[in-house]
């Protein structure tokens, strides 16, 4: 009967990226928390102007541990919804027995998944630099427009980039792609909560083929596991026009399949 939702952001973003989802879910009567990754808290414009060196200390392992601590602070077990690297962390947290249901939207490569060419090309700004593992990396607006938010109308690119994009640590990529991330995931888990994987047909960062490959591994688990494809959506699916459909589908699925009975009543904003 949980009324608590935790939203987990991915690389290049912070909690601010969830502002619309948070408001929408709160209007439905849920308690919503969206913790930042360590050292990602603050205004994106300010973070871009002064990238924090401390980010280089935090890879997937450290960030998952951080969210474990955040979950422990909550009054009840939450629904976990994550995007991109956040979608990977959701899978790790579920694997640790946390959360009553999980949604991984456009998840980045989890340990155990081969990266398709599109994702490798998108990772070039980071993985193309052998020293980036120890660096804080900034995204260019061009990259944001062409690969990250290719589903966003051109006239909204400036506004979204300025409002949401933050620097990220190369360590996230290097640890995630070539060092085993936060450790292996038990694909055939008998115990993890239900999981929905959402992929985007136009996603150039985490291509739908990769989401599907993840689903093919996750569906070996005992509990319900589903895959949902939005054929015309990019990696920016949580903020590009029509994000509400994704947000509602994710929550409805999670609420309907959450552990410990279903959420009894979803208060719709009148």
């Amino acid at each position, binding site marked *: 009967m949980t009324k608590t939702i935790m939203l987990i952001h991915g690389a290049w973003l912070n909690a601010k990226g969830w502002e619309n989802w948070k408001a929408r879910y709160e209007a439905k009567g849920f308690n919503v928390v969206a913790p930042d990754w360590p050292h990602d808290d603050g205004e994106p414009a300010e973070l871009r102007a002064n990238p924090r060196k401390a980010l280089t200390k935090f890879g997937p392992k450290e960030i998952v541990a951080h969210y474990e601590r955040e979950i422990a602070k909550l009054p009840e077990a939450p629904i976990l919804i994550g995007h991109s690297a956040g979608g990977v962390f959701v899978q790790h947290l579920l694997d640790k027995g946390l959360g009553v249901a999980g949604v991984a939207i456009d998840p980045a490569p989890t340990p155990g998944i081969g990266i398709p060419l599109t994702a490798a090309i998108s990772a070039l700004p980071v993985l193309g630099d*052998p020293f980036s593992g120890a660096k804080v990396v900034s995204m260019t607006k061009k990259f944001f427009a062409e690969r990250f938010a290719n589903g966003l109308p051109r006239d909204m690119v400036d506004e979204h980039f300025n409002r949401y994009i933050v620097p990220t640590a190369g360590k996230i990529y290097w640890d995630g792609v070539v060092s085993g991330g936060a450790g292996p995931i038990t694909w055939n888990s008998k115990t993890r909560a239900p999981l929905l994987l959402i992929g985007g047909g136009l996603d150039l960062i985490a291509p739908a083929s990769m989401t599907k490959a993840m689903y093919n591994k996750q569906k070996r688990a005992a509990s319900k596991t589903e895959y949902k494809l939005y054929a015309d959506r990019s990696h920016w699916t949580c903020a590009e026009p029509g994000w509400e459909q994704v947000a509602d589908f994710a929550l409805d699925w999670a609420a309907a399949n959450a552990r410990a009975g279903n959420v009894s009543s979803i208060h719709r904003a009148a």
Partner: protein
Amino acid sequence: MPFITTTDGTEIFYKDWGPREGQAIVFHHGWPLSADDWDSQMLFFLARGYRVIAHDRRGHGRSSQTISGHEMDTYAADVAALTDTLNLKGAVHIGHSTGGGEVAHYVARAKPGRVSKAVLVGAVPPIMVKSDANPAGLPIEVFNGLRAALVANRAQFYIDLPTGPFYGFNRPGAKVSQGLIDNWWRQGMMGAANAHYECIKAFSETDFTEDLKKIDVPVFVSHGTDDQIVPYADSAPLSVRLLKQGTLKAYPGLPHGMLSTHPDIVNPDLLAFVEGKKIEGAD
């Protein structure tokens, strides 16, 4: 230069040296190389009266740089197109690394009478990637690392691989051959980046277990124990167990690229096997 054209219009380059009536030996190169990688073996067998044939896999060497077909089913179909065109009978197929996977996949499907024997050298079967069924395999992150390096700077990556692990030149006391390193780079850069990228999945994630079980002809499995590309323990001994008529020989301390670094040691055993003689030190 001779080519065959496959049903999807791909041109496959091949070499075909020696007497037409001689015993045919077909060589299958590894990733991301070409038929040229077999010089040491092709000259050796040519000098002994054999007919030696080697092709460039699609997307490699001089063959077409196709957008698709970079997986084992198509690789094996391309080989079948070649052996059909040449109408080979009782050929011996020798594959190195990825080429060993191609040999297993082809021989398991070959028309009756086409193949008499096969050899897997430093070959990828049964399967490289780690899983519940293959706990001693390499984690997928290793292959993601190869992919990332290829995408980031293929030209440099193709220097680093032969300079280090491929030939064991990173081992203390190794006798480094700059020629081998340069030739590896040359062959690699002749091929297509997309084909090489997709081929990583083909060689690491294809499960050859059923192929190996199906093969009826004698197979010689030859592998260096210091193979830093296809680790010995998770490949050769497991393949031999699955084969009906498998013979294993481990070469202590030899590297993945032993066909080029130690042809004086490896070639006589290949010859013995082709001639149906006992291979010294094999079990």
